[in-house]
């Protein structure tokens, strides 16, 4: 046997159009990277970065609490309040949507499919843009933020709730129907107890996300800790930027831990 094995055993044929994909990918990347103005650095960049870092390590502790109320604690509390209310509103509003989108509760796939479509539309609409529009409607302030988070969260919560409803055990429903229960009674006694822990867990999860979202609402004037942050950035008050960042990081970490612990106990 003179030929080496590598020539005897045929290689599996690769996709003939594979190279086309590589060429396309390469073209996209060349287009993407060639358009980035990498030389657009401000010469002060290094200095400012240093200033922000030193701001984080030597924060403006005086900003934590001020007698006039426009301080860090007030900003963080307002952020939390926005997320609590936003989450609360969306949890209630999304329930009918979830039942609409759940395939085992709607009549037919077309109806549940249309529900899912509406939810994914709402989900795609960024909360910050919603906040911009609500500011036009109710004026700047936290209430616009509450409404924006409340509306935007419906998309994701509605989908998660619908999934939860689709996973229920049909048995208890049959038992209730066979004892002569009305449709509402079946929902209340057989469906709700099954989905409630899941609903609560997802609500807490969404709350964690909403706290993060609420920190940025102030950037466009929809309340929360984002407002003083933007002012501090504009005024180049790096020590204040430092303490605000620190405050945000601590708040989000604490909320995540608390919410995560409760969620573990629910399931």
């Amino acid at each position, binding site marked *: 046997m003179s030929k080496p094995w590598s020539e005897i055993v045929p290689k599996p044929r690769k996709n003939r159009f594979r190279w086309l994909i590589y060429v396309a990918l390469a073209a996209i990347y060349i287009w993407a990277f060639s358009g980035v103005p990498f030389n657009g650095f401000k010469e002060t960049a290094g200095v400012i970065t240093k200033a922000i870092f030193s701001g984080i390590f030597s924060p403006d502790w005086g900003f934590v609490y001020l007698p006039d109320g426009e301080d860090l604690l007030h900003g963080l*509390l*307002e952020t939390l309040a926005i997320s609590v*209310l936003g989450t609360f509103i969306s949890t209630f509003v999304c329930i009918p949507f979830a039942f609409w989108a759940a395939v085992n509760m709607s009549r037919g796939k077309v109806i549940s499919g249309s529900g899912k479509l509406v939810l994914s539309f709402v989900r795609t609409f960024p909360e910050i843009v919603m906040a911009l529009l609500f500011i036009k409607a109710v*004026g700047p302030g*936290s209430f616009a933020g*509450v409404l924006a988070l409340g509306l935007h969260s419906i998309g994701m919560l509605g989908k998660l709730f619908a999934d939860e409803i689709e996973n229920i055990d049909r048995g208890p429903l049959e038992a209730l129907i066979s004892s002569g229960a009305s449709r509402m009674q079946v929902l209340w006694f057989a469906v709700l107890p099954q989905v409630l822990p899941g609903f609560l867990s997802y609500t807490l999860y969404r709350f964690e996300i909403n706290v993060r979202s609420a920190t940025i609402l102030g950037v466009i004037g929809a*309340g929360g800790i984002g407002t003083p942050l933007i002012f501090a*950035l504009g005024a180049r008050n790096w020590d204040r930027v430092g303490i605000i960042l620190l405050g945000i*990081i601590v708040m989000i970490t604490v909320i995540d831990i608390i919410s995560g612990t409760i969620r573990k106990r629910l399931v």
Partner: protein
Amino acid sequence: MSTNTEKIRPKAPRKLKHYFTAAILIILLWRSAVLTDSSLGELLSGLPNMLDLLKEMFPPKWSYFEKIVDAMLETIRMALVGTTLGAILAVPVALLSASNITVSRWLHHPVRLLLNLIRTIPDLLLASIFVAIFGLGPLPGIFALTVFSLGLIAKLTYEALETIDQGPLEAMTSVGANKIQRIVFGVIPQVQAHFMSYVLYAFEINVRAAAVLGLVGAGGIGHYYEVTLGFLEYNKTCTIILFTLAVVLIIDYASTKLREKLL
């Protein structure tokens, strides 16, 4: 009703915990409403404004589309570059965070902590800080997305790394492979597909994020929200919103299909 059944009948458990939870919730909601000036009255009085706004948004001004195509392309470019840079940086970070690859506790714990801290800061906040550092333009936006992608991809990847089958690794050790060889032949083939899937997932999120980064001056189409809303040209705003929705939905769809193929 016999008396002996009465004896073994258990007492109803106290509902104190439920009442307590309900009370806390009500107080929380009430305080929150006070703090944010939220009320149904406010909502109702704002309702006519909202309807006016919606009326002015439709029909969308389609001709504005041409003006924002370039900004939309910049948005996609930012997402693409940001995700790629983040993904590249995520590889070493994920390897350092995985306890079965970086065995030393003194290394993987601090790296993970740093990763968790990064993940607490929302991308728009990162962008506004980077704008302060680097000035206006797409560059701070790209950096913000890079940091965000790094956090997300590295976290998902190291979690995937920790669930890999140790068998191939042992096999590589037994044939005398060094650390790098073990990772290349024993680890990477196992997480490759997951990693690609996470990168695509991060890309989906980044496209959405990039679309609003312009609000803080970090490039992309978000800038045009302020322009159009500032001049009260709501029909143009509507065009931006619809265009963004279409792009996001198309990219989501393509990416989801690709991810399904990968796994």
